[in-house]
């Protein structure tokens, strides 16, 4: 069967980066086509071109044999191409039906026929197998339900091509399953689905065919997903073999470096105590909201403590003063890079040196030459992919931004305790293993490292010891030799959940 949607020879450059070069592939009608690749591989650029948000420098997009010329997203929309972005585009204050009919309300003389509209939408939703009440306000819906509404919008517009950009990134597994069955139904209708995801499980569960992009080029195209292995896809994405992405290695563990003694605060009322040793990677596992981030934020001075002590190498760290904590050797790579990690609009160099430049100044005057050298050294050491250290950090992919934040703390002198909250969130496989490697190196150099992660395989893969938190208290401590998925999960789940699942 010939391709219904066809990309041929697509190239696109942005200042300083070649985002796509000569990408060609086709997708059959009635297929779910996976689009994979690391961050910065060019997936989003391709989708932007498909949706008319950006124009290709070269190459064409053909739909059912017709070459498409989009001036705007509106044109693509009219041609039946709908992209569902990670950030959903619904009006929260309106009802589901109002959102679905926005722009073409069924009205007579400007008066909307509400009952007819709700009836009509309800019928169409039922037909599509989407169980959302059309009279509810979008603001009251869960993220999963909102996603359904977005898809319903595409279905009601009779979209021929629906592209989903990481649709499950904020869905629970039950919600994801509902989404998948909906996608299955769309496939049967004979639509073309482009499915972008980092998650291999999902791609294997859903997709009929698959394209892998790497560094803006076509790395692989599989007409059928049968017989393709996970390892194969991972190495196509990364461009090299990754046998063991954790790559944990044993190392000597020294004396106690960080002592946390009954620390508690507004958001974490139960006092928490633990120790971390030199050269140790200590993991914190727990459900979201278990209090892990709150604990680390109090240790690093990001949030004030109501009581308790934090000592580093025997020296007391005051509460709520990040600048002092940094001087005494405790630094935090926070969880939300965008909110409190990167400084948007400033260069990589400035993002790196914001804290450590005080070592390079004389009477507050900067030594630009030396600063450049320091930035260059760490960018190279951590293999940050960037055309220049003067680049605005916002232009980097998530993994590279995370590395820049690590550069910030590596360039700081005398760091003894590195606290890292979700070090690999939103980062692709290749960059992940590089970041793990950096953590191992730092531990080998004698730093005490505390890692929070919500991914159980990750904590089990990289940590020497795991503390499990549940509802604001430390519920278990497990040494690497005793790591076991079941016992860690059991300690992380609140009692009633475990009781329910057992009984």
């Amino acid at each position, binding site marked *: 069967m010939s391709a219904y949607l066809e990309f041929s020879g697509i190239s696109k450059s942005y200042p300083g980066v070649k985002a796509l070069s000569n990408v060609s592939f086709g997708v059959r009608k009635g297929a779910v086509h996976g689009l994979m690749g690391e961050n910065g591989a060019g997936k989003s650029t391709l989708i932007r071109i498909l949706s008319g948000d950006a124009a290709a420098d070269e190459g064409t997009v053909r739909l059912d044999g017709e070459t498409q010329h989009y001036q705007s997203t509106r044109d693509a929309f009219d041609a039946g191409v709908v992209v569902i972005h990670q950030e959903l585009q619904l009006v929260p204050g309106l009802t589901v039906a109002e959102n679905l009919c926005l722009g073409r309300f069924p009205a007579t003389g400007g008066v909307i026929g509400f009952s007819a509209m709700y009836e009509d939408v309800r019928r169409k939703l039922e037909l599509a197998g989407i169980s959302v009440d059309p009279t509810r306000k979008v603001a009251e819906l869960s993220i999963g339900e909102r996603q359904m509404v977005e898809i319903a919008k595409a279905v009601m517009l009779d979209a021929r091509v629906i592209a989903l950009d990481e649709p499950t990134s904020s869905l629970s597994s039950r919600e994801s399953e509902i989404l998948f069955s909906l996608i299955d139904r769309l496939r049967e209708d004979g639509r073309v689905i482009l499915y972008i995801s980092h998650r291999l499980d999902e791609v294997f569960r859903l997709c009929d065919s698959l394209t892998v992009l790497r560094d803006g080029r076509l790395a692989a195209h599989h007409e059928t997903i049968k017989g393709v292995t996970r390892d194969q896809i991972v190495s196509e994405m990364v461009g090299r073999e990754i046998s063991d992405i954790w790559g944990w290695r044993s190392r000597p563990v020294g004396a106690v470096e960080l002592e946390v003694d009954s620390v508690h605060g507004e958001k974490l009322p139960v006092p928490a105590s633990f120790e971390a040793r030199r050269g140790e990677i200590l993991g914190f596992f727990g459900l979201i909201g278990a209090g892990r981030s709150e604990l680390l934020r109090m240790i690093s001075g*990001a949030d004030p403590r109501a009581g308790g002590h934090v000592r580093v190498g025997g020296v007391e760290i005051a509460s709520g003063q*990040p600048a002092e904590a*940094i001087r005494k050797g405790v630094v935090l790579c926070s969880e939300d890079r965008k909110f*409190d990690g990167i*400084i948007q609009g400033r260069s990589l160099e400035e993002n790196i040196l*914001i804290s450590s*430049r005080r070592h390079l100044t004389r009477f*507050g005057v900067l030594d630009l030459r030396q600063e450049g050298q320091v930035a260059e050294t760490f960018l190279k050491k951590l293999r940050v992919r960037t055309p220049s250290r003067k680049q605005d950090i916002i232009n980097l992919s998530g993994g590279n931004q995370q590395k820049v934040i690590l550069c910030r703390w590596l360039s700081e002198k005398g760091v003894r305790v590195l606290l890292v909250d979700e070090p690999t969130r939103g980062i692709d496989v290749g960059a992940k293993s590089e970041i793990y490697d950096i953590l191992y190196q730092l531990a080998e150099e004698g730093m005490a490292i505390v890692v929070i992660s919500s991914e159980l395989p990750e904590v089990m893969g990289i940590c020497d010891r795991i503390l499990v938190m549940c509802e604001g208290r430390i519920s278990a401590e497990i040494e690497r030799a005793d790591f076991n998925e079941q016992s860690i999960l059991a300690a992380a789940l609140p009692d009633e959940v475990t009781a329910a699942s057992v009984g």
Partner: protein
Amino acid sequence: MTTSIKKLILGDQGLLVIFILAFALVSLTVPNFLTERNMLGLLQSVVTVGVIACTMMFCLAARDFDLSVGSNVAFCGMVAVMASNATGSIFLGILTALAAGALVGLFNGVVIAKFRINALITTLATMQIVRGLALISSDGRAVGIDDPGFYQLALSRFLGVPTPIWVLAALFVVFGFVLNRTVFGKNTLAMGGNPEASRLAGVNVDWMRIWIFTLQGFICAVAGILLASRITSGQPNAATGLELSVISACVLGGVSLAGGRATMTGVIVGVMIMGIARTS
């Protein structure tokens, strides 16, 4: 052809290009524009706006705002005149005015940073309070200067160029250096880019804000003294609406109101554009 023009105007140096074009146009169309006398007059006219734009740039770059500058300029001019008259020493008068200006700025900074009151609201309030102080202390009338030496601040010339213009030039150089080459400048830009990230990276954000506002107040006093000398009296109603001219000049110069972006050259061009627009 059109795309390259577009690029030139909308690019990084777009403002400079527009400025040069405007300058050339005005030079050709307005008679006597390009004379030394007129040029110096133009520069004289932008001294107040230009001087304050230097520190307003820091304020805006740090995501803050200062609406009290106009009132503060008038107030400091009054203080300079009245203190000179009272003590009989111009030097002491100037010193008092500088201290008064810095104090107003310090007050703004402390209220904004420590009490966490929105900069817009805080400076809107100080704008009224300070203007009120200027009016009360002078009974609403202009106050003349006893010692004619005070006029010399604005009238004296060095190498044929009036002193205020030298002051302006010096401040441009100093604040350009501070912005680009000191920890203070870089931290200001970082704070504006992402205040929370800067705090966690060890920047003392509260302290920085207090300093920025204090500096702003101090520079307002400089502008106030020069202005009082030029108009040969302390005028409680001087410099009304100045805050908007200064902010406009900064924004014209590419300083982002969302914080994190500012260049000294941009601000200089912004100030000059305001000057040309007003005088011609």
